[in-house]
């Protein structure tokens, strides 16, 4: 496989591809390094991708697995476990029109097995965990990851433990417990959960914490969003990508995916302008961007966008650096703007997103109003999760017509409502 080491992003120290996430010299994050020098026949690589399965394993050459994709080895076409990816990229003409923009596409990652982009990262982390001999999966989650880990563990017959803040949305807790996992609700916020899991991962070395000791592999899964967008757009890059930021991992790995393929000559174009989206009630990365800092001061989250409520973002510095380098920005939107964003997306595209997608859509609207987006730009908005998981965000935002079961009652109601 082209993946050949783990490399520290801070000091460059190199390690073998083990369950390790922190540089022992400087505590910097480890990232998977690849050697693509033998990948010279671009046409052959494209054909191999196109002949692959309709899930992320079509990009196995670019993912850190020793044995290629998991499952039956014939034709590299794996459908084992709970395959993620190959979600729709929808041309959102009515959304573009509503905002006065030229071309907007929605990458709808709610269309994954457990209804968020987390199925991508968990698929990769789990496949690597199995290669390394782990039998127990675990995670620190704001909800979507809990769903994904519990679902993936169930599909593969692994034991699992998911750690969540105890005040999480009920829908996300129910959609986790149903898979038969061990749900551990921690009295505290996500950053407390994460601190506990960081400590636990040191003490439970036989557990694969997907976003702690398996984090370098996990994070690579997000690159597949970029690969799919580029492939769906005919092997080109969009001009601009708007994606949510919690830890900053998704945001930075989308860019890594585009850059890998640009370097190899697999796609036309250039690195898209990268716009990050946060909720005002938890915006440490947007604040660092605004202040011109390269470190993020942690915050205590207070927002309805609980899936983005990470007050102490691990990849915050890299997200800030990427936004600057790509000519983008990192914006924050209020809870009311998030609710409006959810409605705007739903009413113009038929896609019902959770609060994180409301953050992203509201940020698109903000950039459009500010005049930051050119009339000829091709913009992709990344919708990371499903609206049914955060129903409170839309409760009470519309009127239901309650009538008696008679024609007259219907006529009376809609005559007064002035409907056609």
């Amino acid at each position, binding site marked *: 496989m082209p993946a050949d080491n783990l490399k520290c992003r*801070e000091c460059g120290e190199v390690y073998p591809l083990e369950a390790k*996430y*922190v540089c*022992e*010299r*400087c*505590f*910097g*994050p480890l990232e998977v390094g690849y050697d693509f020098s033998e990948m010279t026949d671009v046409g052959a690589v494209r054909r191999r991708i196109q002949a692959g399965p309709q899930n992320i394993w079509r990009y196995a050459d670019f993912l850190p697995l020793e044995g290629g994709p998991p499952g039956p080895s014939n034709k590299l076409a794996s459908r084992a476990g709970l395959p993620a990816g190959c979600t729709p990229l929808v041309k959102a003409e009515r959304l573009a029109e509503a905002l006065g923009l030229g071309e907007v596409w929605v990458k709808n990652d709610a269309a994954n097995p457990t209804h968020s982009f987390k199925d991508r990262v968990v698929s990769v982390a789990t496949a690597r965990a199995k290669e390394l001999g782990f039998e127990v999966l675990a995670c*620190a989650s704001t909800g979507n990851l809990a769903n994904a880990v519990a679902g993936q563990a169930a599909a593969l017959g692994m034991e699992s433990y998911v750690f969540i803040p105890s005040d999480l949305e009920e829908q996300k807790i129910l959609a986790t417990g149903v898979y038969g996992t061990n749900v551990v609700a921690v009295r505290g916020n*996500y*950053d*407390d959960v*994460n*601190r506990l*899991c*960081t*400590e636990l*991962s*040191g*003490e439970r*070395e036989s557990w694969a*914490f997907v*976003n*702690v000791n398996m*984090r370098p592999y996990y994070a690579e899964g997000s690159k597949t969003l970029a690969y799919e967008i580029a492939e769906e757009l005919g092997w080109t890059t969009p001009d601009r990508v708007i994606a949510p930021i*919690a*830890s*900053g*991992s*998704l945001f930075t790995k989308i860019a890594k995916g585009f850059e890998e393929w640009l370097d190899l000559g697999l796609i036309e174009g250039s690195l898209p302008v990268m716009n990050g989206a946060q909720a005002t009630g938890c915006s440490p990365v947007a604040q660092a961007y605004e202040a011109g800092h390269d*470190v993020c*001061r*942690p915050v*205590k989250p207070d927002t309805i966008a609980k899936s983005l409520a*990470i007050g*102490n*973002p*691990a*990849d915050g*510095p890299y997200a800030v650096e990427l936004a600057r380098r790509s000519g983008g920005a990192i914006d924050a939107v209020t809870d009311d703007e998030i609710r409006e964003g959810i409605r705007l997306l739903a009413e113009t595209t038929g896609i019902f997103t959770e609060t994180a997608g409301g953050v992203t859509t509201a940020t698109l609207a903000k950039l459009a109003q500010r005049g930051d987006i050119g009339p000829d730009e091709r913009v992709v908005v990344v919708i990371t999760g499903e609206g049914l998981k955060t129903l409170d965000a839309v409760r009470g935002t519309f009127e239901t017509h309650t009538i008696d079961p008679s024609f007259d009652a219907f006529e009376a109601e809609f005559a007064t409502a002035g409907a056609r």
Partner: protein
Amino acid sequence: MAVTVKLPTQLRAAAGGASSVQVEGTTVAEVLDAVYVAHPELKDRLSDDDGQLRRFVNVYVGGEDIRFGDGLATSVADGAEVQVLPAVAGG
């Protein structure tokens, strides 16, 4: 009475295998300096050339991130627990 400093697994080899150390100190800076005296190898791992914490090191006093307090000047009560952890987890 002393302060207990919990070390993550990544640092234990540099601390003779210890998972925690007992030191004296009234601020995080004093506590860490005392840790460095006991285990000199740890200093370079945790702090940069200016004596500040490296940017991927998190320190907690009684479970609270010191960046919500006064950073290295955060006071540490007698008997408190100081925890050092890598910052790159989660998300």
